[in-house]
């Protein structure tokens, strides 16, 4: 009956195996390549790790995988840490993963290239989808860490360049686990907000791990889906992320992103001041031109014509006046002659002559007495001779 005692139920055996495995492999680190990666709706991850000759099933619960800064991709070589356990319903052993990291930076680089190729093939980087960045934004949305240096830079640039703008910050973690989801949510949030003209997705410099959220597929798709144009300003000049490729415009740094998004107040002021001085000159030029036009017109044949006409008329008048004067002279001469003739004939009737011939003029009461009947014998009379007068009584 010893043998009978040895008989175990499946569950009992499984329990024993599980105990043995868990105690033996309580803390193991394993390197391998990811395959069949699935992120379940519950938030748990299911995948396999494999190498050339073997494969092992893995699980990573939500409580642990939320601390992973990258989204695992099939083919990525990773190092996991966890314990071996058994899943009784299936009678299989599996690795219960507690932490995970890429086997090397090369792995991230590879994942980056892979995603880049995939999205590029889908057309997410196509120039035709790039939305224009407005010149005069009223509201600029910002997706970045609320306590980051990037935000301080963005605000100071906005203040300096275009304080007319309103900054709307949708804070998001930009590093570590959950960063990608937070960035996606913030982009959506700003798309729902009224009146955002442009969104800046930014983060200061850091390692490839630090910037990894911007290389996540969900971030790329959220940027692509955004109806508001997006400028990316992630890391330094040399850092290129997937977000940069999908964004409508890539700025090398957060500060430059804000410079691109805003017009420069100094340039605007210069333009305005320029306008005032330049347009005064234009006006002066216009007046000068018109003045020249008027002067030229004055000198033109058409304008001279009336003067000519006037001059001609003047000449005619002069001529007429000349004629009038001439004829006046002529007439005067005629009259002069007539007058002298008349004078001569008058001379013939000159009283003096008669007096000389012995006639006398009789004057009574200051009147000449021409008839004897008019003569008053009682009164004095004055007799006028040729050579003098006498009074008779």
């Amino acid at each position, binding site marked *: 009956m010893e043998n009978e005692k040895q008989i175990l139920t499946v569950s009992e055996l499984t329990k024993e195996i599980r105990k043995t495995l868990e105690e033996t492999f309580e803390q193991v680190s394993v390197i391998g390549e990811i395959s069949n990666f699935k992120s379940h709706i519950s938030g748990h991850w299911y995948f396999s790790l494999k190498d050339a000759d073997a494969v092992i099933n893995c699980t990573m619960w939500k409580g642990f995988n939320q601390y992973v800064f990258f989204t695992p991709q099939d083919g990525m070589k990773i190092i996991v840490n966890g314990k071996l356990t058994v899943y009784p319903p299936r009678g299989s052993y599996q690795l219960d993963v507690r932490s995970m990291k890429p086997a090397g930076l090369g792995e991230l680089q590879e994942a980056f290239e892979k995603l880049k190729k995939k999205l590029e093939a889908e057309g997410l980087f196509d120039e035709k989808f790039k939305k224009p960045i407005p010149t005069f934004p009223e509201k600029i949305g910002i997706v970045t860490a609320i306590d980051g240096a990037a935000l301080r830079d963005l605000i100071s640039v906005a203040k300096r360049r275009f304080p007319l703008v*309103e900054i709307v910050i949708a*804070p998001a973690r930009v590093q570590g686990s959950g960063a990608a989801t937070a960035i996606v949510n913030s982009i959506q949030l700003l798309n*729902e907000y009224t*009146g955002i003209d442009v969104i800046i997705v930014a983060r200061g410099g850091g390692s490839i791990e630090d910037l990894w959220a911007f290389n996540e597929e969900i971030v790329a798709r959220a940027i692509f889906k955004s109806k508001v144009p997006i400028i990316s300003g992630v890391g330094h000049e040399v850092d290129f992320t997937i977000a940069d490729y999908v964004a409508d415009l890539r700025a090398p740094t957060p500060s430059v992103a804000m410079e691109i998004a805003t017009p420069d107040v100094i340039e605007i002021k210069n*333009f305005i001041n320029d*306008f*005032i001085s330049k*347009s005064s000159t234009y006006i002066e030029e216009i007046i000068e031109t018109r003045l020249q036009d008027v002067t030229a017109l004055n000198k033109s044949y058409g304008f001279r014509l009336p003067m000519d006409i006037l001059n001609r008329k003047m000449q005619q008048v002069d001529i007429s006046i000349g004629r009038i004067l001439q004829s006046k002279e002529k007439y005067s001469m005629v009259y002069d002659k007539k007058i002298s003739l008349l004078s001569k004939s008058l001379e013939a009737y000159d009283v003096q002559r008669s007096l000389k011939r012995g006639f006398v003029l009789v004057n009574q009461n200051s009147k000449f007495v021409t008839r004897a009947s008019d003569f008053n014998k009682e009164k004095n009379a004055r007799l006028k001779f040729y050579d003098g007068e006498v009074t008779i009584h």
Partner: protein
Amino acid sequence: MTKKKTKSNFEQDLSRLEEISRILEEDNVELEEAITLFDEGVKLSKSCLKTLKEAELKITELKSELGKYTQIEE
């Protein structure tokens, strides 16, 4: 965001100023018109400069709580 909104007053003023500048530069405007435009331009210049001088950056922070977003004005 809906379709492209109407331009802001500042943007409108500035583009009008650019337009006036262009018209004046072309030098085939009537003198009266040029002077009217110049007057308008100077007025716009002054109002734009005033707006810029008085501008202060406005910052709004959006906060996400349980899927509901509240707005915090700074």
